[in-house]
């Protein structure tokens, strides 16, 4: 083994490095965007016609998996993730709001402080006045000064209370907003889940089977199978269609057959155009994947 590696060190290293890069790249891939795109959410600016065969394979495998719970778990996880995303955004908004509020509070507090300072200054002034008034030894002046003090104190106190109240209200408002956002998210989520469930039902239900069978029959009728297309051949054709079933493109993406096989399957798609339309409009896909896998 070691000898093998030593002899083929460069290609081995290259192989390991490339494989490592692939693993890293795959680990950091986001795959819940799969669900997002289906829900028709905010436009994601990525070229929709680039379909990687690797993900297509994943889709094929997933379709073949009959366990509904697995799908539901994915759905729930995706919903949760989406909800988390939205929550995050809502939180961000809240945070912004909070910041604004805090700023206002700070300003208010500064103003309080300024007023307090002013009050203190006045208080000092009042004492000075009182000292001066001592010389005048007028009770009114002293009383006036004391009243002023009390008023200032009361004002300060009131302002502090007001500030506290504002803060409390702000907090309450924030709590309320958060609660509302959560509620909104809940209904939104429920709607999305309902829609997804419907699409899922349709995709797995008898209507989808009917559509699939109609497509199969049309393609089978149209495919002139060459002798080279024997069992073991496995080829994928990516088909683009417009509503009504007319084929706009047919591309052989992956195929272990020779040129005769490839020509024949590409031709089959064009000969089958226009393709049958689905019984349920939600079943229409602009992109179809045809897997040619002869069993005889």
């Amino acid at each position, binding site marked *: 083994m070691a000898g093998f590696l030593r002899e083929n060190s460069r290609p081995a290293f290259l192989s390991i490095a490339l494989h490592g*890069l692939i693993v890293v790249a795959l680990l950091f891939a986001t795959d819940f965007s799969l669900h997002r795109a289906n829900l028709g959410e905010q436009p994601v600016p990525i070229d929709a016609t680039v379909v990687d065969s690797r993900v297509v394979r994943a889709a094929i495998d997933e379709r073949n998996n009959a366990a509904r719970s697995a799908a539901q778990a994915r759905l729930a996880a995706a919903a949760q993730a989406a909800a988390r995303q939205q929550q995050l955004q809502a939180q961000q908004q809240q945070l912004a709001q909070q910041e604004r509020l805090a700023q206002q509070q700070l300003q208010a507090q500064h103003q309080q402080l300024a007023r307090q300072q002013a009050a203190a200054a006045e208080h000092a002034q009042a004492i000075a006045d009182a000292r001066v008034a001592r010389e005048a030894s007028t009770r009114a002046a002293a009383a006036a000064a004391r009243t002023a003090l009390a008023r200032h104190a009361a004002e300060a106190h009131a302002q502090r209370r007001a500030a506290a109240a504002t803060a409390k209200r702000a907090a309450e408002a924030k709590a309320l907003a958060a609660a509302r956002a959560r509620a909104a998210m809940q209904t939104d989520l429920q709607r999305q889940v309902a829609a997804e469930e419907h699409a899922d039902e349709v995709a797995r239900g008898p209507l989808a089977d009917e559509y699939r069978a109609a497509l199969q029959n049309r393609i089978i009728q149209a495919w002139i199978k060459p002798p080279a297309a024997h069992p073991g051949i496995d080829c994928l054709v990516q088909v683009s269609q417009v509503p009504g079933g007319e084929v706009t493109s047919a591309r052989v993406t992956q195929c272990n057959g020779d040129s005769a096989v490839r020509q024949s399957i590409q031709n089959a798609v064009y000969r089958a155009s226009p393709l049958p339309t689905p019984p349920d409009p939600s079943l229409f896909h602009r992109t179809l994947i045809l897997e040619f896998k002869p069993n005889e």
Partner: protein
Amino acid sequence: MNEKSRPFALALLLLAGLAACASPAHAAFVVQITRGQDTAIPIAIVPFAAPPGASPFDVAGLVAQDLDGSGRFKSMDRRDMIDLPHSGAEISFDDWRRLNDDYIVVGGMTMPAPDRYDIAFELYNVLTRQRLLGYQIHTDTAGLRLAGHQIADKVFQSILGIRGAFATRVAYVLVLGHVPHRTFQLVVADADGANPHVVMQSSQPLMSPAWSPDGKELAYVSFEDKLPSIYVQVLKTGARRVVSATAGVNQAPAWSPDGRKLAVTLSNRAGNLDIYILDLATHALTRVTHNPGIDTEPQWSNDGKSLYFTSDRDGGPQIFQVPLAPGSRPRRLTFQGSYNARPRLSPDGSQLALVTRVHGKFRIATFDLQHHGGLRVLTHGRFDESPSYAPNGAEIIYATHAAGRGVLALVSTDGRVQQTLISPQGDVEEPVWGPFGSE
């Protein structure tokens, strides 16, 4: 995958992986197709534009005949052609699509000089409107049939990915007259049976013609001395020489892949048939089988290192293989049925064609050399014999009985298509398909 392409393939894999990460994949609607139609590919071969004032041989008609004969194509009836384009620009693809043609061949002929022809032709895919190929051929009157075969070869290869063998030739034995006054002829003809030439005639039996690998010579067995001898004849000049005339049996010549040796069947005094290698230059004989049974019908492997042959050492005839290294022991290959004989190796070395007996009927079958298993019976006659592969491995020519006489027949290697060829009067026997180079 060789050394050079591996890093490139890894890089592709990496890019594919990154692309998968970068782009969100849509959950696509997937449909599986497990069956198709077993029909021939519909193709329109539009008659070529003729040179002004001349009506030469119908080249387009021969192209259609060749392609139809392969069983893989069905050419459109000319009477249904509403339009006669002669170049790509003149093709209105929607019309041909409506007429249900998948492909179309168009072309034209001009005569730059008396007896000289220029043929230009193109092949288009009607569904995708792509031009698949275009060629020009310069030839004379005598070469027009060959030109037609060459066009059919190009079309065949472009659509099916298999080299066409329409321009190659076949050889066979023709027996004329009735017992006991019969005449035997060795005939070389085009693969479609046209242009037969008698290269040897005798009042005594002729057997086992075999093409040299370069297509220039034929080896065969002749009883002209009332005893069998093996001759080699140069086709171009007709010069012939005896290469084996030992006492007793001299039969079943088979050329080695390098054309320097013949494997032959000889007998000893006791009449025991065994296989020997004859060096054509030195005339040295090397014995290969040592068995009291009948060992005959040798065939070389493509690497020249072993022989396939028929032997009844286990009772009835079966197919064996023996390496040519001294001291090697033959290994039996066929175990199904009680009669398997006359092995012929496919050009790619993947299978043997042979004669097998099924419930008393003799039929052509193939035996997969990579997955030894059962036989695949291709034909349905009672007296099918002498299978021989086309050099592109797509079809097998063989002899069968029809209306009490021997005729030529073709079957596609997968058994799908069969047809009896128009055969000359008399009994056709032992057809052998010439190699690329026998044209």
